[in-house]
Each structure stands twice: as structure tokens, then as C-alpha cells.
């Protein structure tokens, strides 16, 4: 391995080790948790309490008596009703420019959304998906219900 390659590799390691990626993972905080609320991260499900951090990649779910409210770093507010499964697919927010992207999927259940600074800055930045539809958000408040009618 040439020296310049070693230097390049070291530089690559350094860029990934800077605080950026760790902070970038933090997407929001749970502000409301009623009944059974769980966060699945890296295959592990743990009960979630008020104050818990939500990261990109997390899947938040509620039980039959559960509901959860999350405030994101760009001031987006997402809250889910009972028997809901919400995946935070992607979250990136530059607090100086307000650029970034926020993608989430409601796999089943109900969801109330108040969009935040990302959607205000650029209409393409925020997307909410369900198994049947993709929602484009133009700075707004809206409600989503999805799933099998039996549920």
C-alpha cells in the first residue's frame, strides 16, 4: 500500500469519526408516550419513554392502547395513534440553511403531521409513505390512516 493511500484512508476515517455522523443520527425526541410505545433500533425493541431520542432508522410502534408524539429537530411534529407502526427512514437537517430531507413510512395505523422547517425551505424535502401511497408535503398539517380494514 502506498503512502498516499494510507493518508487517504486515514483522512476517510477521520471524516467519519468527526462528531457529524453521530449527531446526524439524532432526529427527534419523544414528547408524549401513552400506553405501550416501543422503539425498534438495530433489531432490538425497547419501551420508549418521554425524553427518549428518535434516530433515523428507528421504527416506532404503539400498542392497542398506545399513542406517541415526537418533535423532530426541524420542528416537524409527528404523532401516532393506537396499533401504529412508523418508520423513520431518513432524517437530515442543516440548521443553518434548513436544507435536508425527512422521509418516514406509516406501515399501519394513524398519524398526525405538522411539517417543520425542512418542508418550509423546500417542498421536496419531506415525504411520508404508506404501503399504498406517497405523500408530498407543501408546508402543512395533515392526517394519514393506512392498513388493512380488518385492523
Amino acid at each position, binding site marked *: 500500500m502506498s503512502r498516499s493511500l494510507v493518508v487517504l484512508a486515514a483522512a476517510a476515517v477521520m471524516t467519519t469519526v468527526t462528531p457529524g455522523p453521530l449527531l446526524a443520527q439524532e432526529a427527534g*425526541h419523544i*414528547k408524549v408516550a401513552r400506553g405501550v410505545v416501543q422503539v425498534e433500533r438495530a433489531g432490538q425493541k425497547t419501551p420508549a419513554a*418521554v425524553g427518549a431520542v428518535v434516530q433515523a432508522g428507528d421504527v416506532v410502534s404503539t400498542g392497542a392502547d398506545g399513542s406517541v408524539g415526537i418533535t423532530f429537530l426541524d420542528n416537524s411534529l409527528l404523532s401516532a395513534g393506537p396499533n401504529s407502526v412508523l418508520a423513520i427512514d431518513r432524517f437530515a437537517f442543516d440548521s*443553518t440553511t434548513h436544507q435536508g430531507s425527512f422521509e418516514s413510512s406509516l406501515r399501519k395505523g394513524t398519524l398526525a403531521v405538522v411539517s417543520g422547517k425542512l418542508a418550509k425551505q423546500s417542498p421536496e424535502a419531506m415525504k411520508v409513505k404508506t404501503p*399504498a*401511497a*406517497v405523500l*408530498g408535503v407543501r408546508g402543512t398539517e395533515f392526517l394519514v*390512516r393506512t392498513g388493512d380494514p380488518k385492523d
Partner: protein
Amino acid sequence: MRRLAGLAALALLLLVGCAKPARNDLYVLMPGADGKTGALTVESGGKQAVLDQPYAAARVKESGQVEPGTVTEQEARQAFGAALAAQPGRPASFILYFLENRDELTPDSKQTLGSALDEIARRPAPEIVVIGHTDRVGPVPYNDTLSLRRAERVRDELVKVGIAADRIRVEGRGEREPLVPTPDEVAEPRNRRVEISVR
């Protein structure tokens, strides 16, 4: 006979399929809390509906079938009651000004700081975001740094009065979000401010 049974089963399947939609999806645009209503596009299997009126709704019973319509406020509250009840408190914003060329808040802003502290005490798991702003004098990168420095000064103030430092996030928005719009390079004291957002 076997073929007949097969046909009957198929017919039954079709009937059931028609009687019961595969999905029960409902999408509703709500009026904004600030009185403005945004817009929502609902796209399913190449079909799209644009919702841009309060309580405009779209139903998707099968992928690719988007039925536009409306719901009443009451219907929305009924179908989404628990999700709406779990909505976190809206972020509250407090704006502080400094005495010119001094490291001290104006008397009004000292009062505002008190109101911000009350709001922090009221919230569950409160986060405090301190956002610095500048006017448009000077280059953008310079103002980014300056706005962050202003925010850090207010953060120090909050720590002094007992707010845990790890609950406070500082952001510098530079000259991008003037309170009073001006052309570039215009001095405007009302734009040299720090916002405390409590959420």
C-alpha cells in the same frame, strides 16, 4: 364437478374481493394552526390527488385508485382522535435583543428571557434551541459565524440561570431569516437578534 367447485370458489373470491376493499386508507389535509392551509399531494400507483383546502381528503381503497373528497372536522377528529391528542406542544419562540455594542440584554429582553424560562418549566422533556441571527452587513460566512457566537452568548446566559447545558442546542442562521427584510449590506438592528425556541 371438480371444475365447477373450482369456478364457484373463484366466483366467491371475486365477490368477497368486491365487497371488501383491500385497504382503508384515508388522507386528510388540516387547516394550519397559523390560519394558513398548505397542500398535500397523494400519489398511488401513478394516480395523484392534490389536497389544498381544509378537510380535503383522499381515500385509497386499492393501490392506484385515489378518490378525492372531503371529511367534516368532526369525522377527522373521530378517526384520528388519539393521534391528534398525542401531538407534542408547538414550539414557542422568544426573541432577545442586546444593548448596542454591549454584552447585555435590553431590559425588555430580560423580561422575555423570564417568560422563556417559565415555558421551559412547563414542558415535558424540554429542549431549548438558541438561534442567532444577523443583519445583512458583511459576507454570508462571516454572518454565519457571528450568529452562532450570539447564540452561544445566550446559551451561556441560560446555563447561568440553571438550565442544563445538554438540553440546549445552538444554531446560527446567519442573515438568511431577517425579521425586517432589507437589501444586502443594510444595517438593521431589529435583525441582530437571538431567538430562543422552546419545544
